[in-house]
């Protein structure tokens, strides 16, 4: 079968209520502790997002935005700098997505994390420190009001404010045009793949067939 016709949604726009997660250098071990990765699917990871900062040893809730009633329906996360650093585990954005997050606005993202988000169709848009601070404060004060993340126009609108944000060029194009699931896209270039491989001196050129499966 071929998945070339698979319908990949365009993510040019996300709207919803926000949740602020403050702090620089929030690593993926914090987002999803390693012990929850002893699984062979991503199902059910949502409830373990930020587990160790949300619960104490006796599973009592700690002070954390994700435990607050007013943020339970949030789908736009507002974070600070170098968010998602450390381990490449896609379990981290998978856990956030399954908790309910559809878009993340931050001062900066670790590269692998941002790439993983893109592969899931989650925009990671950036803005400067002041903009993020102001937005986090606004979300705190207005947990039930909507934020509009316009990926195509690179703006975020909230409570009558409009802030300019940046979306990496390739990410924007991929999301806006619905070409963020790259498997089918790349598989279609079979001939070009073979040609590239044939030019690589380290490959055993006696075995040059890229397997076709459709």
């Amino acid at each position: 079968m071929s998945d070339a016709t698979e319908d990949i949604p365009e993510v040019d726009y996300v709207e919803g209520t926000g949740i602020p997660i403050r702090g620089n250098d929030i690593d993926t071990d914090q987002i999803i502790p390693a012990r929850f990765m002893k699984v062979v699917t991503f199902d059910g990871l949502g409830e373990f997002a930020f587990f160790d900062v949300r619960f104490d040893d006796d599973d009592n809730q700690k002070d954390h935005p994700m435990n607050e009633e007013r943020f339970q329906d949030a789908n736009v996360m507002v974070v600070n700098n170098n968010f998602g650093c450390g381990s490449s585990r896609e379990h981290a954005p998978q856990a956030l997505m399954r908790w309910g997050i559809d878009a993340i606005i931050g001062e900066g993202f670790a590269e692998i994390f941002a790439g993983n988000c893109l592969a899931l169709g989650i925009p990671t848009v950036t803005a400067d420190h002041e903009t993020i601070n102001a937005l986090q404060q606004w979300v705190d004060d207005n947990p039930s009001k909507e934020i509009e993340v316009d990926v195509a126009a690179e703006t975020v609108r909230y409570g009558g404010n409009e802030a300019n944000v940046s979306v990496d060029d390739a990410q924007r194009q991929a999301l806006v045009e619905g070409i963020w699931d790259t498997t089918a896209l790349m598989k279609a270039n079979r001939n070009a793949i073979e040609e590239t491989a044939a030019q690589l001196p380290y490959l055993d050129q006696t075995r040059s067939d890229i397997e076709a499966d459709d």
Partner: protein
Amino acid sequence: MSRGTLYDKVWDRHKVTTLPNGQDQLFVGLHLIHEVTSPQAFGMLQERGLEVARPDLTHATVDHIVPTANQDRPYADDAAERMMAELEENVRDAGIQFSDPTTGDQGIVHVIGPEQGITQPGKTIVCGDSHTSTHGAFGALAFGIGTSQIRDVLATQTIAMEKQKVRKIEVTGELDEGVEAKDIILEIIRRLGTEGGVGYVYEYAGETIENLDMEGRMSICNMSIEGGARAGYVNPDETTYEWLEGTDYFQEHPEKFEDLKPYWESIRSDDDAEYDDVVEIDASELDPVVTWGTTPGQGIGIDDPIPAPEDLPEDKQDTARRAQEHMRVEPGQSMEGYDIDVAFLGSCTNARMPDLRRAARIVKGRQVADDVRAFVVPGSQRVQRAAEEEGLKDIFEEAGFEWRNAGCSMCLGMNEDQLEGDEACASSSNRNFVGRQGSKDGRTVLMNPRMVAAAAITGEVADVRDLKEVALQ
């Protein structure tokens, strides 16, 4: 834009096309897989009715969850057993070579690739593990990927990526006694920041890097990601070629060695290559580095005072305050004398033969402090065997260390090797994140392997230069 660097050349050789989204499609020369990040990718492939395109360019091992004490199957931990069984099934169905523990070739994925000679200069190498940057030590372009990208690579042997900038980090000066590659990279991360490398690939150059053995170069490239750089590399040279010549692949195919050498030479960065940024580091000023906080960028020389948060750049202050509270350290103190409960000598950063050898010279004839549990987890079964043959196992065991089987172990606490409660650990690994070693109250102090040995012996963070080294044999 960089020009004429190894990165540019290897990128161009592997570029298939530019995708409609603006990313480049790159051919992947070697895809390494392990049990934690690959099962979901195989699942996605199955859902789409796709097969593994190039099993011949894919290589598997088991490292993250593998027990390092009792490895009898089924594993005592059901979840670990399930993950192992899933990997076995996936590689069997796809016809992927698997360095499992019965082969004698198993180990941490970033240790076994170089050992077997499948890690080579000028290859693109990916793995669902952020420390894939390790392979850059050989002049490969190597980086970590997520599970959806693993799916892409399994299905197409290609990956969608954007080209990054290149920062040359030129390290000069002779290393002081007790100072090694680990200290250089901790200093680089401290200076450039944990996010300083985002958007960059790091080229490590200069006489100090050139004088390092391959293991030292691997320690440095390994931690590129801790500085935010997804990939880091060293240009291949005679040291690289000497290593390659001794590996399985080139022992079995000696003709390939001569065939490929011109390619390896051709991908070295040109003398007049252009970089997006150049940073110079004088390594002769370095003391052994230890971390005082909860990011790898929070390092200091062993004698230096822990910085006051308010003396740091504004964006580092909050992280520093929280880190000092977690670690229970005060500004102005040094880390020397910080009590430790556990000493962990292992991980893809520092668990190769020279690492263990150097640590053994400190340990020999001494005893692990009474209240410290200390253990050595070799990076691979080959390292383990070589160390046993060389008598290192005996040295460690006589001193009171536990000698384990190969795996990731307490670097990330996914098997039974974990910190308990608020234990403090002197660790030769790469991350001191809160909770990283299996306990959310655990405290990790990163350092080089000899410093771990010194900490195990003294029961506290210590300056290894105060302990005399003992000749081996």
